[in-house]
């Protein structure tokens, strides 16, 4: 793999990290916490108490992440499969992200005009989305601390 590919992966990695951070901040902002606990009183953080702003940023983050995921998944199967290997913990992370994405997408569908999900199903989606988000954050943090990579470069 050439240097430009490695460089593009490096940029994508930082975009993904920034997007995931924005998704986590705005995701937890869907609960009424930031105003209660004065986060929105910090200069420059007033927007965290506006549910419409955090909701739209959350959606925008999801768009970026879905685009990146589709782009690199396609490239992985077309080009990188012989170069990189997804590790066991990488598969765990993929599972968590997949559940978060599917439950999130279903929540988006549920909030469309003329679409009705049962209360039980919405509660189930909310629970899944929150639990797997927390699991993802904890496991990603642990893997980072103990230096377990999600992907490994295969030996030439």
């Amino acid at each position, binding site marked *: 793999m050439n240097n430009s590919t490695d460089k593009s992966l490096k940029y994508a990695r930082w975009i993904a990290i920034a997007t995931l951070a924005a998704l986590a901040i705005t995701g937890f902002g869907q609960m009424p916490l930031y105003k209660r606990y004065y986060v929105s009183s910090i200069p420059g953080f007033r927007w965290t108490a506006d549910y419409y702003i955090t909701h739209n940023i959350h959606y925008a983050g999801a768009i970026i992440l879905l685009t990146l995921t589709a782009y690199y998944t396609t490239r992985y199967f077309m080009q990188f499969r012989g170069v990189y290997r997804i590790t066991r913990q990488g598969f765990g992370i993929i599972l968590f992200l997949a559940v978060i994405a599917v439950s999130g997408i279903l929540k988006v569908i549920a909030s469309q005009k003329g679409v009705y999900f049962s209360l039980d199903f919405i509660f*189930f989606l909310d629970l899944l989305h929150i639990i797997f988000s927390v699991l993802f954050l904890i496991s990603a943090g642990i893997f980072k601390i103990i230096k377990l990579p999600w992907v490994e470069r295969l030996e030439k």
Partner: protein
Amino acid sequence: MNHKISRRDLFTKGAKRTAAAGIAAVALPQAVKGATGSELATLLDLRKCIGCEACVYACKDSNAKKYPEPVKPFPVMHPVKRVKVEDWSENRDETTRLTPYTWLYIQRVKVYYNGKEQELNIPRRCMHCENPPCANLCPWGSAHKQSNGITVIDTELCFGGAKCKDVCPWKIPQRQTGVGIYLKFAPSLGGNGVMYKCDRCYDKIAQGEIPACITECPEGVQKIGPREDIIREAKAIALSEGVYLYGLEENGGTNTIYISPVPFDVIDRALEKGDGKPHIQPVADSMASADLLSKAMVIAPLAGIAAAAGKNFRMLKKIFSPEKENNE
């Protein structure tokens, strides 16, 4: 309503709901009811309302079993300066605004229009939006929309964070502290009671009955029916009788349509507004930008796949181009 829910109950209920939803998820098409089933809407003709409050008391009588019975003393909630107790349990008879015990009240207004003074009485309650932000943005799904167009708050799941009130263009839901599920977790740190609002007697409607506020009205101010029929009728009356409509386009469309002989901007200017006393101004669709972004969400993965395919195609073209072959 005195819900005695233990933490165990919650998890049992949660597990049951999760299991039920898991099964429902398998049969997803059955769980999703599309726009084929018509939503119900109400038409309120303000020309007929005499402000007798029969609807207000009918609502109170009919829904008394759903009212909160808070546990006192209330837990100390932190930060004390930021989290205020909202207790209406000692003032249940208040009828001059919306409260957790008054889901419908009469807004009285005197307006000067076309050179004469007129008194109007406006029954105010939840508008039951077509695309309700309270339901779309509730973090626990406790506020949810039914396929018949009614938005209901599940009092067993609500933590009383009042997000539904914050995102409601009319600030309709009202909070009662000291009741609900938050008491079973960390009441000092999260939640503050339960939110209450008109549920349009969803339980009566489920039994094929009419909401109490409609049946008890001596003047026949309100009528209920399929949204398309109600809208058709409202538009026809507006056209033939030169009256004004409110609720048709507000917040992207609601299931509560008001008919008034006076323009609503004139009414709004004269209206006493404040907490529990909603305005009657034009309202833009709160979910419009989110709806736009959700459309982009459908395109996003396709764009990613296309970009990756394009990139690979360019790389392959470069590798197998004649120049490359010549160079080699």
